Structures are given as C-alpha cells and as structure tokens.
C-alpha cells in the first residue's frame, strides 16, 4: 500500500465510520474498535515510510499549493499519528467495557461516533499542510471535545462543557483572525510557502499574537488553564483520557509547528521566554493544586495542568542553538510519553471510581488489596508523571534538563526537579492510601463493585507503554529527526 493511501485512509476511514456509527448504533462499538486497530496499522505504515523515505507531501486531488489541500507528514506528524492510534486503541477497548458497566444515561451511545470523529480530526490535524486545514481540524476537534465533556449529562458536566465551549470558540475566533491576517498579507495559507515569505512586520506580529493566545488557551497553559480541571474531571473516564492525552497535545502541536516552522522564532525570543516562564509557573502551581485535591480525577486533571508546563519550556530553551535540539525533541517526547501515561492514569481512576462509587482519595484505603492491577497501573503511570526512570518522561526530562543546564538556565532546572518531587507527593498520596490496611470485616468484597478485566488491563498496558518509551527511544527519536527544526540529521527543517 502506498503511504499516500494510508495518509488519506487515516482521515477518511474514521470519518466514514463515524457517520455509520452515528446511524447504526448497534455496530458502533465493534466498528470503532475495528477502526482503532486499522488506525494503528495505517499510522505505523505512514511512520515507517517517513522513517525510510523522509518527509511525505501529498497533494489531494493533484491540485497542489496554493490552491489545493496538501497533506504533509514529517517525523513529528508521524509520531503524533502513532500516539493518537495507540492511545485511541487503548481508550476504545477500555470504553467498550466501561460503558457496558456504568449507567450514564442514553447519551453515552454518542461516545462512539464522537470518538471516531475525534480520531479523524486528530489525524487530519497532524497531517495538515496549511493554516486553513489546521483551523478546520482544530474546530472539528473542539466541537467533538465539547460533546465528550458533556457526555455524562450531569449538571457539573454540562456546566464544564459550556465553559469549555465558550473558551474554545473564543480561541478559535482568535485563531481564525490570525489566519485571515496572514492570508491577506501573503496570499497563501500553505505552511511551506508562508515560511519562505514570512516577514516580521506589524500585521504578522498581530497574527502571531492572536494565534499564540488562541493555542495557549486551548492547551490550557497557566493562567489560562482554569477551564481544564472541571472539564476533564467531569467527563466520563475514557473521554477524559482522550481530552488530556490527545486533544491538548494537538493544540500544542499546532503551536509548536507554527512557531518553529513558520514564524521567525529567532525574533520571538522574548515572547518565547514569557511562555517558558508561564510554563515554569504552571509546573509548580498545577502540582501544588494537584496535591491539595480530595478527588482522584481532579488530582489527575491538575497534574495535566502541571505537565503542560513542561511542554512550554521549549519556547524558551531553544533560544540557544547548541541545546535547541535537546529542548525541542525533549518537549515533543514529553508530550508523547505524557499522553500514554495520562490516559492510563485517567482510565485507572475511572476504574477506581466505578469500583468505589466515588473518587474521593480518602475512600481508597485497601484498594491495593481489592483492585491490585488498577492500583499497579496507576502507580506505573505515576512513575511517568514523576519523571522517574525508565519512563519516557524521564528521558525527555533528561533532555530538557540538559538544555537548561548547558545554557545556564538554573531556575528552569530547579523547577523541573521540584516539579518531579511534587508529582511524587501527589502520586504517592494516592498509592499510600491504597496500601493502607483495612480491617477484615470492612474489607468485605461486596463493599466495592468488581472491575472487568478490560478495565483493569488496558490502563496497565498504556502505563507500561509509557514506561517502554524510555527504554526504546532510539527509533522514535530517530523518526522525530526527520524534517524537524534543529535536527542533527537534516540540519534544519522546512515544512
């Protein structure tokens, strides 16, 4: 199969399946799982093609830029596709069991088509070669995300969904405005053409600000993170995993791609430092908030706020060319590892919530006895959240720390280390509680609901995958070098 076909398939297949699943509800579950499995094969095929042949560009319908729609895949996109496919499969398998066991109202049937639309828009976003496509896919993503947040149908969920909708639509407007400004200046939305034409004049600066603010809002960087914890905590566990694991990463991906491939990042140094400082504050603030939570899902959601902070350090740390590649690849690798680990943590906390009928951390005493696999999964995901070896997060932290130390940014290095220790505090708060012994009478197994094997083992599998990323980093990092900025292999990137 040609790589082009796989690229198209990654968008068309989930989109078509989503429409079918919307109508034919009976086959929705099987269809979604089938698509998720196919997605893994297609994404690996695309990634392998990029690995061996270099970046791929596909002109849909043969029109070509500036008129037609171009799909573009390099190492970064390839990794995004793989990440979406792996997390997607894990979540879908988990969800088939989760929704069979919980009574969350009739609206949960919409999970499956929404999930497929989400895959389609994520895959399209990762392969988009122009600004307008990025806008459309981002918009589609936002709408599915809103629906996913509100899926539980509770008052909390609907309020959180509404708040997210307002935030996201505002952000989209900003983004669209920025795109319109760029289009009026340069007459193209193709990323490659834009990069060659870009000038640092006033309209362009305005568009950069608009686009950056939009994407920061969607990625929930401190202090624009306020909408995230209620939204991610109120959604059903599989939806939370998708939102925290994938949706946030996609807006970060867009910012990363524009910043380093299109915008003149060398001229944006002070803005980059600002983003770095906000990231550092996010790490500390998010971790401290996570420590203070009494509910498990909120704890995991605030942990996301903190971990998003690490990603934004890249905008500051790339200002010196000698360490830029370490910082850039470290941030991307962080995003990948965090996706897997955070999805695992959300799924595990969903299982615990299902078993205990509540996600209060205080009620987890004895959980290590009753739900050993789930607690184990949470703990292994926690190893990644803490950034301890051998997880992929550890490796990316090593790369980020290396660039911070080499360029003499000691404050960032300290923030990263303190962030790790704070993460240990909130992870072990949960683990220690679950290890507490309970007296044999209260430990009556009927006190908690059993967790189905799928709901036990998929979080563990995702958590172990996050761990494995640290051990098997050679190939993913090699893939990442293709077409990347600062890459030691290509000596600089062009989209």
């Amino acid at each position: 199969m040609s790589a082009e076909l796989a690229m198209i398939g990654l968008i068309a297949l989930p989109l078509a399946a989503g429409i079918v699943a919307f109508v034919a509800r009976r086959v929705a579950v099987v269809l979604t799982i089938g698509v998720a499995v196919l997605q893994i094969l297609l994404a690996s095929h695309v990634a392998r093609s990029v690995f061996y042949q270099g970046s791929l560009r596909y002109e849909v319908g043969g029109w070509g830029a500036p008129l037609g729609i171009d799909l573009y895949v390099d190492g970064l996109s390839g990794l995004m596709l793989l990440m979406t496919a792996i997390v997607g499969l894990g979540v879908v398998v988990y969800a088939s069991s989760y929704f069979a066991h919980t009574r969350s109202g009739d609206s949960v049937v919409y999970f499956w088509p929404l999930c497929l639309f989400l895959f389609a828009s994520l895959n399209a976003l990762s392969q988009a070669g122009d600004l307008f496509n990025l806008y459309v896919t981002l918009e589609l993503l936002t709408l599915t995300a809103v629906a996913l947040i509100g899926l539980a149908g509770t008052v909390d969920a609907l309020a959180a969904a509404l708040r997210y909708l307002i935030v996201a639509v505002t952000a989209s407007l900003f983004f669209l405005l920025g795109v319109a400004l760029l289009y009026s200046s340069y007459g193209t939305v193709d990323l490659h053409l834009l990069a060659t034409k870009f000038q640092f004049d006033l309209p362009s600066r305005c568009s950069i600000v608009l686009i950056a603010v939009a994407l920061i809002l969607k990625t929930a960087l401190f202090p624009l993170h306020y909408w995230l914890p209620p939204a991610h905590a109120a959604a059903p566990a599989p939806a939370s995993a998708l939102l925290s694991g994938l949706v946030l990463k996609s807006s970060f991906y867009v910012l990363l791609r524009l910043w380093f491939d299109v915008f003149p990042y060398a001229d944006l140094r002070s803005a980059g430092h600002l983003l770095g400082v906000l990231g550092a504050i996010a790490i500390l603030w998010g971790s401290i908030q996570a420590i203070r939570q009494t509910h498990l899902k909120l704890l995991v959601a605030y942990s996301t706020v903190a971990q998003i902070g690490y990603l934004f350090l890249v905008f500051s740390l790339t200002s010196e060319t000698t360490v830029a590649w370490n910082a850039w690849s470290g941030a991307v690798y962080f995003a990948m590892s965090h996706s897997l680990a955070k999805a695992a943590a959300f799924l595990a906390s969903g299982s615990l919530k299902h078993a205990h009928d509540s996600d209060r951390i205080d009620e987890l005493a004895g959980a290590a006895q009753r739900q050993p696999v789930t607690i184990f999964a949470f703990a292994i995901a926690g190893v990644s959240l803490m950034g301890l070896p051998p997880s992929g997060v550890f490796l990316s932290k090593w790369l980020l720390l290396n660039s911070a130390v080499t360029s003499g940014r000691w404050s960032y290095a300290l923030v990263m280390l303190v962030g790790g220790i704070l993460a240990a505090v909130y992870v072990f708060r949960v683990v220690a509680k679950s290890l507490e012994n309970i007296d044999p009478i209260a430990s009556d197994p009927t006190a908690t609901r059993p967790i189905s094997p799928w709901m036990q083992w998929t979080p563990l599998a995702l958590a172990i995958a996050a761990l494995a990323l640290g051990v098997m980093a050679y190939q993913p990092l090699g893939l990442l070098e293709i077409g990347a900025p600062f890459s030691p292999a290509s000596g600089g990137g062009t989209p």
Partner: protein
Amino acid sequence: MNLDHLLPLLVIASSLIPGLVIFALGEERRRARTILNLGGASVKLLLVAMMLWGVSQNHVYVVRFPITQSIDFALHADPFSLLFVTLSAVLWFLTTIYAIGYLEYSPHRGRFFGFFSLCVAATSGVALSANLLTFLVFYEMLTLTTYPLVVHRGTPESIRGGRIYLAYTVSGGAVLLLAMVWLQSIVGPVEFVVGGFLESAGHEYRNTFRWIFALLILGFGVKAALVPLHGWLPEAMVAPAPVSALLHAVAVVKAGAFGIVRVVYDVFGVGFSAELGVATPLAIVAAVTILYGSLRAVYQDDLKRRLAYSTISQVSYIALGTAIAGPIATVGGIVHLVHQGLMKITLFFAAGNLAETLGIHKVSQLNGVGRRMPWTMAAFTIAALGMIGVPPMAGFVSKWLLGSGAIAAGQWWVVGVLTGSTVLNAIYFLPIVYATWFKPPDGPWPHDHERGRFETHLWLLVPPVFTAISVVLVGLLASIPFSPLDWARLIVEREYRP
C-alpha cells in the same frame, strides 16, 4: 549476541522475571511461589559464579544499547561490580529462605515477594551499571520497589515510615539527576572508567566539578545514610525483618555506598578527588557519621532502632575508606562493603527471630534469652563481636586495614575515630551479649510461639547461623583466593595500577 553480552542481562533477569511471574501468580500459589523464589535465587548464584570466574580470568562482559544518539544503556562486569553483585546474590538467597519462613502465613505475600525480587533485580542493575545514566535508572527503581516493602504492613506507622523514606530518597534522586545532567553537559556521557577520567577535562571546570561532586555525594549520601541525610533509616524500621535485613545489608544503603565509591574511583579518580580538595570533606562527613550513629545507637532501647543507628555508623566506614587516598584504606573500605553486609544481616535475622518467636522488640527484654534461643543468640553474639572488631572476625579485618591504611596515608586522626567508634560499638553491643547469656530471664516471654522441634522455624534459623559462620570464615580465611579481601585487593590493584 553471545554469552559475554548475555550474562549481565541474565543476572538481572534471574530476579526480574521471577518477580513479574510472582505478581501474576496471585496469592494462594504458595508452592509455585517458593519454587520461583528459590529457583531464581539459585540461578542467580550460578550465573554470578560463572561471571566471577570469568572476571578473575580478565574476561570482559559488556552489553550496550543506544537510547538516544548520545545516551547508552550499558551494563558491564568489572571486579567491583562483581563484589557487590556476589554479595547481593548470596545474601538474597539466604534472605529469601528467611522471608519464606517469616512471612508465608501473613497476608499480601504475592505482592511482597514480587517486589522483593524486583528490588534485588534493581540492586544487581546498580552493581552492573557501566555508566551514570544506567546507574540512576536502577537506583530509582530500587527506591520504587522498596517502598511497597517498607509499607508492607499497611499500618499508620508503616505508611508514615514509607512517607519519610520516600521524602528522602526521591529528593536524593532529584539531586542526583541534576548532578548527572550537569556532568554530562560538560564531559558527555559518563562511563565508569577505572581511575576516573575527569582529570583530563580541562582546568576551567575545576570549581564546577567540586559542585558536582558535592551534589553526587548528596544524592548517594541519602541512601548511604550519611549524617545529616540519615533520618529515613530509623523510620524505615517499621518494615518486616527480612526487608530490614535487605535494606541494611544488601540493597539500599549499600547502593548508596557503592555509588560513592564509583564516583570517587571511577568518575573523578582518587588522585583527582584529593587534588580538588573534596576527599577530605567526605572523610570528615564519614567520620562524623560513624561517631554520631554509634552514639545514638547507645541510647536506643528498641533493638531494631539500635541496629539501624549501628548501620548508619558502620556503612560510613566504606565512605571513609574511599575518601582516604591510599590503597590499604581503600581495600579496607571496599572489603567492609561485604563484611558489614554479612554481620548486619546476621544481626537483623536474629532480631527478627526474637520478635517473631518470642515477641521481643526491646533491648531491656533480652535477659536470659540465650537459654531459650541458643542458636539465634550465638549467631547474634558472633556478629556483634565482629562489629566491635574482635579478631579474627570480619569486622576486625576491615577496621585493621582502615586504620593501617590511614596511618600509611598520614591521616592519624582516623585512628582516633576508629577507636572511638569501637568503644561505642562495645558499649551498645556488649550489654546485650552479657544480658542474653548471663542474666536470668525476667519471666515468661511476651508472645512465645512454639515452633516445632527447633527453637524457632527451621527456615528462620538456618540463614543467621550460616551468615554467622561466614562472618568468622571471611575473617579467618581472609587471604585465600576469592575471599572478599582477596577480591578487594584485586579491585584496588587495578585502581592504583600505574
């Protein structure tokens, strides 16, 4: 990939795989679990013996996987790795026997033995690491796998002990990470090379190297329980006795001490450390730790706490021997890594037997216990006398070498420290020995569990007797080939070879 590459991996796998299988087995499969535990431990002994022979014949075992362009995961087996890995393999085998006897009737055995095996896998990894990154991977894995063992009982006290343990070790790990990244940013990937390699790195980095050295020692010093980083160790005493034995003799404190030796000898180099002026501060910290630990031990009535403070003191002999630039003291420090392990594990086995069989936890309850449990207390006595440094036992050999090595290096004050420590050792061990053998019992023991024909369960009795005999043997036969002392000499000869 031939056997030379495979052997280091197999040594780690021999406890990693049984550990993972034990998790999968579940709680009730007692026989299968016992077979896996002892099978893994025996296979490990065999593999280590093969490697020991190979290394003594100058055979090189290395295995290396690239993780990124500039970072490798690498294992190797040099004589010093083998000293540590042999110690942990032998003592793990005995501790496994002991733990089966100690815990097979209490809850969560599956979890316990799973983490128990993983913990030893991590220790072997620490021993066999060929560079700082690999070392850190296993060092942190050790923290994570020992935590569930420390909190095993799930009581509020053990949860608290576990929290303190983590607070120290996780912070120590963070400091270590910073130091390693810093070092790597200057000199590139840090491989362990006999004699160190930083000396050639250029003059302008000297001050930076001092800072990095301090951070590295800070990071390792937490696990090695250097004062004032020792606070977790007495708190971690809430763990079951086999875990304490493991923490004190084989795994955690030893990994810290091992790391200090690696940094001084194989990263910085002895000569360069002395030149930078960082060796003497380390020696002073070690000396303070030795005296402080002993002094605190004197005032503990809880037997395990007394042993814990004794560990704090005794482990610093290793750091002291390392910091004194001279071959004889180095041999003393390195051989003490083994000797302290043998003696301390005997003491903890004995303390565990007293708690398990008679319900005795305090020093003041020990009157006349030698008559009820003669074998256990004989083992305890031998190990205690060894700790004090009575010839011909293991502790005497290490103290003698440390003292004469310090004199050879012109560091007379060390002899004073050793003498002071010996006096304090005698003050906190001799009354116990006296009370158990010569005082009459105060009355019935708190919880006397009759356990069959012997004074206690046979599985609890064999390990301490065995280690006690070895405490005498490694002292008596210190100069025969493959004895710990002989092996330590081999290590040091390679280190100081011109």
